[in-house]
């Protein structure tokens, strides 16, 4: 780590003024990602600003629109095991518990989960070119070992994926991100929070300088009856997704009233395709229909030398997970296949 100074921000305004005045003053909450990035010299800090003492953003409570507001400083574990989340948003609970390890979930915060960086090995290796880490230096992954990389949403400058499991569920739930900053507070739809790399892959999301996440709102609709999270990876646990799928279904008289499907591990942000979800409306929840949806979601997918397998894997995972969603009681620890 470089030599940095350290201070505790006791209120929001202090944190905002410290980071808006200097791009290299960095916020730290759980620390599980930024400490690692500092150790690898991927991130440098002038001052590290500890925000854990900021009041008012570390609770889970009902919001004014019948949904739930989860504070940015609540840990991933406390969120996943919260009684309201387990009951009304079990998809979120399962997705969180599929990520990282118990120790990391006890430390990592919800705000930090949205802001974690990619685990592309070239991003992490400061000896190699990487446009995300060092803009303009090139992408080592496109011609390199790209097994874990993107098949959707990538660009000629970056094919890294966003690694979060929690965010795949937040995408399906149409969460809303609350942001404070030097200007007025604003709310951003989850689908607009993260961004595709284009020719500026150094920016993972649409936060502006000095802004920080204060809370995440979950709308009332939680898909608590028909849901599933499936995570496919190289180990049975404690590994990032090669492909993951979050599904929420709403059924009426045996037909699909609403379907939401998001992919993780395949793109620079959780991947949803509205037309593919709309296609399922009014149809029977059966394999043939989910196969057609999977084709639509993977439309335009482009693999590279080592990750082409993800295209077929993602299609099969979508079908499997949609069928699993019809019987959520079959969910297994670690979001393993259950049917």
């Amino acid at each position, binding site marked *: 780590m*470089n030599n940095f100074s*350290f201070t505790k921000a006791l209120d929001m305004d202090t944190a905002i003024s410290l980071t808006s005045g200097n791009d290299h003053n960095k916020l730290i909450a759980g620390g599980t990602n930024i400490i690692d990035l500092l150790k690898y010299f991927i991130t440098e800090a002038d001052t590290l600003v500890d925000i854990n003492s900021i009041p008012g953003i570390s609770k889970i409570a009902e919001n004014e629109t019948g949904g739930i507001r989860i504070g940015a400083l609540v840990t991933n*574990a406390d969120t996943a*095991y919260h009684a309201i989340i387990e009951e009304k948003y079990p998809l979120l609970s399962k997705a969180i518990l599929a990520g990282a390890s*118990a120790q*990391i979930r*006890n*430390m990592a915060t919800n705000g930090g989960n949205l802001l974690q960086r990619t685990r592309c090995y070239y991003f992490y290796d400061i000896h190699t070119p990487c446009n995300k880490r060092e803009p303009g230096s090139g992408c080592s992954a496109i011609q390199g070992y790209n097994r874990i990389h993107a098949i959707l949403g990538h660009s000629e400058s970056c094919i890294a994926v966003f690694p979060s499991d929690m965010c795949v569920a937040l995408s399906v739930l149409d969460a809303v991100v609350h942001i404070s900053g030097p200007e007025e507070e604003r709310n951003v739809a989850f689908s607009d929070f993260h961004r595709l790399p284009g020719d500026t892959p150094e920016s993972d999301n649409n936060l502006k300088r000095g802004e920080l996440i204060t809370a995440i709102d979950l709308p009332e609709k939680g898909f608590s009856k028909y849901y599933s999270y499936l995570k496919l990876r190289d180990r049975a646990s404690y590994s990032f997704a090669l492909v993951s799928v979050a599904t929420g279904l709403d059924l009426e008289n045996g037909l699909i009233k609403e379907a939401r499907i998001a992919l993780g591990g395949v793109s620079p942000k959780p991947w949803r395709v509205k037309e593919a979800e709309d296609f399922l409306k009014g149809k029977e929840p059966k394999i043939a229909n989910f196969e057609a949806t999977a084709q639509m979601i993977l439309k335009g997918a482009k693999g590279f030398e080592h990750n082409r397998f993800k295209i077929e894997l993602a299609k099969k995972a979508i079908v499997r997970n949609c069928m699993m969603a019809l019987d959520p009681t079959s969910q297994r*620890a670690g979001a393993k296949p259950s049917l």
Partner: protein
Amino acid sequence: MIPNFRFMANSEKHSITLQVNGHPYQLELLPWVSLLDALRENISLTGTKKGCDHGQCGACTVLIDGKRKLSCLTLAVMQEDVAITTIEGIAAEGNLHPLQQAFIDKDAFQCGYCTPGQICSAIGLLNENKANTREEVQDLMSGNLCRCGANKGIINAVMAVKQSISHE
């Protein structure tokens, strides 16, 4: 290779007090000292191990206010006013903690390097009380790697203590 830093702040040492195993330790630490390094280098509690130093292996697991956390991924200056428990602090005077005894009984280690982290993690797991089946215990212990491959014995040890608690 260590890159040329843009920042080399003339950081001052912070005067902090860490509460470890029930004892206060007054320390003068630079801000970038991890809790793991503070425990090992400044307090000389070397039971907590440095494996990967990047949050991938679990060898540095300690209990903070009863919750299992990775001491390599947090700074010592962030851990004032909390109760830190390391492997040295889990047993009552003169006795082994039930998990320590179970690790011996169930052959749950070979080289022993991951063992302090495994045991602290297992105590955290039992405090959480979220694992009901062997599969769930395996999943919730997956943050602790054992390169010797003693995993089966480790899970046997955790299951044995878990069952003895539920029969009390």
